[in-house]
């Protein structure tokens, strides 16, 4: 057998040629390198017979069994077995290779000596036409536009099924293949799903992955997902995210829901997010995050490096280290490069850049973008009128939010990519 749609509905005969019933489903068992067909389900009246595949003989256009129909040894489906008609054919699956959610038009098998393996699924229009029994349309299309609709099999290893059913019960399945993808790609995929599937996928991912995936989705979808999942899990995911990203999502939710989630969060994290929520959208304050690296001015280069080692993994960017007075006032900045090339015992205040390019929380996004562009920064500190450091804006936040025309800059002007150096700041 080659295609599932060719197998379904075929009549199965017993050893003396009496019809037993029609093929209703095909069961596969996961295996290496490919899943193997382990049984077929035969509809016999209202009852299903699950027949082990090794006992089934395939003939032209029909199947036959070596026994009489009243002596059929049944196959007991295992937990990992997949019913192809019930769980795969006509269902939506994720094509891990192309990051797409597609509908399965057919399932392709390959025959190897002694067994039949599942090669992959066919989600192409060509497969749909074949399944509809109107393959000739492909010929017409080839005649009209010069090429037939492409035929493409998605290898089973690239297929993530979204739901599996065992009888009338729906199983929640761990999405292992999906979770191995890059968070941006997972986000692309969930954007193609319907709201219920999205919530299911986010629920199935571990908290860290979910926290990486969510910010990559569109703002509406982020808010919808957080609204749809359990508040406790929502708060776990938000805690894992950068405070500015968490605040973005919460800002789109209803106030009751926001409160509900903030209450579930760790008090410290919640405090950061609450503060960020007070800033207006589309201002520097709204863009910034409260996670940055800062040391006090008396610390030595070695001390700063030790501190970085200890704390940095949490911070969004560690390329700039901000220097603060005892009263949290911003007095300087050093780059990671400055820090590493400096003598270990030199205090940071001796080599820090003192004229720090900064922005006020109320400034517009556009002003922030212009500073980034002019000085080629990776991050920009946000300070209030008392020169107290409130947070930083990182370049990726600006890139996401600023319309492309601002970045294009003025014609004829030479631009360099943002880099790690602070030389420009020194000249400013």
């Amino acid at each position, binding site marked *: 057998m080659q295609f599932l749609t060719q197998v379904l509905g075929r009549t199965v005969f017993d050893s003396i040629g009496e019809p037993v019933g029609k093929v209703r489903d095909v069961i596969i068992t996961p295996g290496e390198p490919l899943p193997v067909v382990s049984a077929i389900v035969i509809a016999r009246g209202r009852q299903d017979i699950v027949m082990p595949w090794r006992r089934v003989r395939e003939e032209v256009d029909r199947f036959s069994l070596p026994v009489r129909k009243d002596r059929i040894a049944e196959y007991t489906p295992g937990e990992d077995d997949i019913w192809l008609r019930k769980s795969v*054919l*006509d*269902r*939506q699956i994720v094509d891990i290779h192309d990051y797409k959610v*597609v*509908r*399965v*038009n057919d399932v392709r098998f390959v025959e190897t000596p002694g067994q039949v393996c599942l090669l992959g699924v066919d*989600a192409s*229009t060509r497969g*749909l036409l074949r*399944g*509809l*029994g109107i393959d000739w349309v492909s010929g017409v299309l080839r005649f009209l536009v010069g090429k037939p609709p492409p035929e493409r099999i998605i290898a089973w290893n690239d297929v993530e099924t979204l739901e599996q*059913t065992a009888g*009338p019960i729906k199983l929640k399945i761990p999405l292992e293949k999906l979770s191995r993808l890059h968070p941006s790609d997972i986000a692309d995929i969930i954007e193609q799903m*319907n*709201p*219920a*599937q999205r919530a299911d996928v986010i629920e199935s991912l571990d908290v860290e992955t979910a926290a990486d995936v969510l910010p990559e989705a569109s*703002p*509406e979808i982020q*808010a*919808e997902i957080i*609204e*749809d999942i359990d508040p406790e899990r929502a708060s776990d995911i938000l805690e894992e995210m950068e405070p*500015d990203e968490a*605040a*973005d999502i919460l*800002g*789109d*939710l*209803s106030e009751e829901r926001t409160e509900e989630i903030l209450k579930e969060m760790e008090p410290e994290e919640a405090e950061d997010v609450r503060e*960020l929520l007070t*800033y207006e*959208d*589309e201002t520097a304050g*709204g*863009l*910034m995050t409260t996670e940055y690296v800062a040391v006090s001015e008396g610390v030595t280069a070695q001390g700063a490096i030790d501190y970085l080692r200890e704390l940095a993994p949490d911070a969004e960017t560690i390329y700039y280290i901000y220097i603060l007075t005892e009263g949290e006032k911003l007095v300087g900045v050093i780059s990671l490069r400055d820090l590493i090339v400096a003598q270990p015992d030199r205090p940071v205040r001796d080599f820090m850049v003192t004229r720090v390019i900064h922005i006020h929380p109320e400034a517009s996004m556009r002003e922030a973008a212009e500073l980034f562009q002019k000085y080629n920064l990776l991050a920009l500190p946000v300070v209030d009128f008392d020169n107290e450091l409130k947070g930083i804006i990182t370049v990726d*936040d600006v890139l*996401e*939010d600023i319309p492309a025309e601002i970045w294009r800059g003025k014609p004829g002007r030479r631009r360099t990519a943002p880099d790690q150096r602070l030389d420009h700041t020194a000249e400013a």
Partner: protein
Amino acid sequence: MRKRLGRHRWAVFLAVIGPGLIAANADNDAGGITTCSLVGARFGYSLLWVLFLITISLAVTQEMGARMGAVTGKGFGGLIREKFGARWATFPITAMLIANLGTTNAEFAGIAASLGIFGLSKYISVPVAAVVVYLLIAKFDYRRVQKVLLISSSLYLAYVVSGVLAHPDWLHAFRSMVRPTISFRSDYLLMFVALIGTTITPWGQFFIQSYIVDKRLTAEDLAYTKSDVYVGAFFTELISFFIIVACAATIFVAGGQIGDAADAAKALQPLAGPFASTLFALGLLNASLLGAAVLPLTSAYATCETFGWEAGIDKTPKEAPIFFGLLTFFIVASALFILIPGLPLLTIIVLSQVLNGVLLPIILIFVLKVTNDSSFMGKHTNSRTFNVIAVLTIAGLILMTILLLASPVIKNLI
């Protein structure tokens, strides 16, 4: 930080007007207004009993759609594909596409007729409207526009006032609602099927379900959804009732002739006097624009969902060729059809609703099959009462269609 959405305001709005009410309100499109006007104008109160019965059918079938959406989180197209496979799914989808193409024609006919009242030639209004509709769908966030159009559909309340001011024979009207009368004249049968076809529509079935899915309502919200759908069905049919009563009390008593849209506007004279035509034209234009965008969208989304083609306004035509192809085809084909010289616009509108009524049983049979399947619906399968009402609706429609086909329709066209 990203742009925050103006969600809160819409949240408040949606708290008052739920999906059921929105879907039901969208039901009062060009076909709805025209059919009800003609029903009242030609047959007075005598079809009100049908309206009474189909209000129940509408509530039940819409509730089934809403329930399927809430329980499965999937659109109707996806469900029939998953339950019946690609081959069987082509039947309801083809039926829906034909019915919807007819209704889209009706919407453009509505645009031509309403602007015709202002003296604008259809050779100008229809092409312009086609471009406007396409831009509304493709360039703007149609869901916002839809809300504006839905709010303006409160224009129909004018019929309630006008109906009251026309001093109808209330006793007669209410008696007609509960006392079935039937005639086997073909124009009566035609209006009978049109009235059903304009109320319970193939597209409405797809629309309510996808609306529920988009609004992310789940099985936990079923109690709310149910009451919302019932209120919506009641409200739509209340408007239909007043359109029929207003037309019966004004046009029917005066001889019952409706030749064009301007005649239909006379039903609003008790309220608006000389401005009746303007009011009618605005209401019809609004309803037609609403439908002219909703129908191509619903059709394209449902078809692509069923067959697994990419769909979405945020995609490019290259990424989603079939989706945009269908959208364009619906709009262009409908607009071109209405441009045929000498086309009787109101007749086209009513015939499209008849087509809806004739094709509806196919859709409803599939609705019934899915809503009774516990592997999709879990414990939320249909109650016996619901099944009985749905089966009676289907049987009644098929019977009326046979009667209609058996009678010499062509002779007595409106």
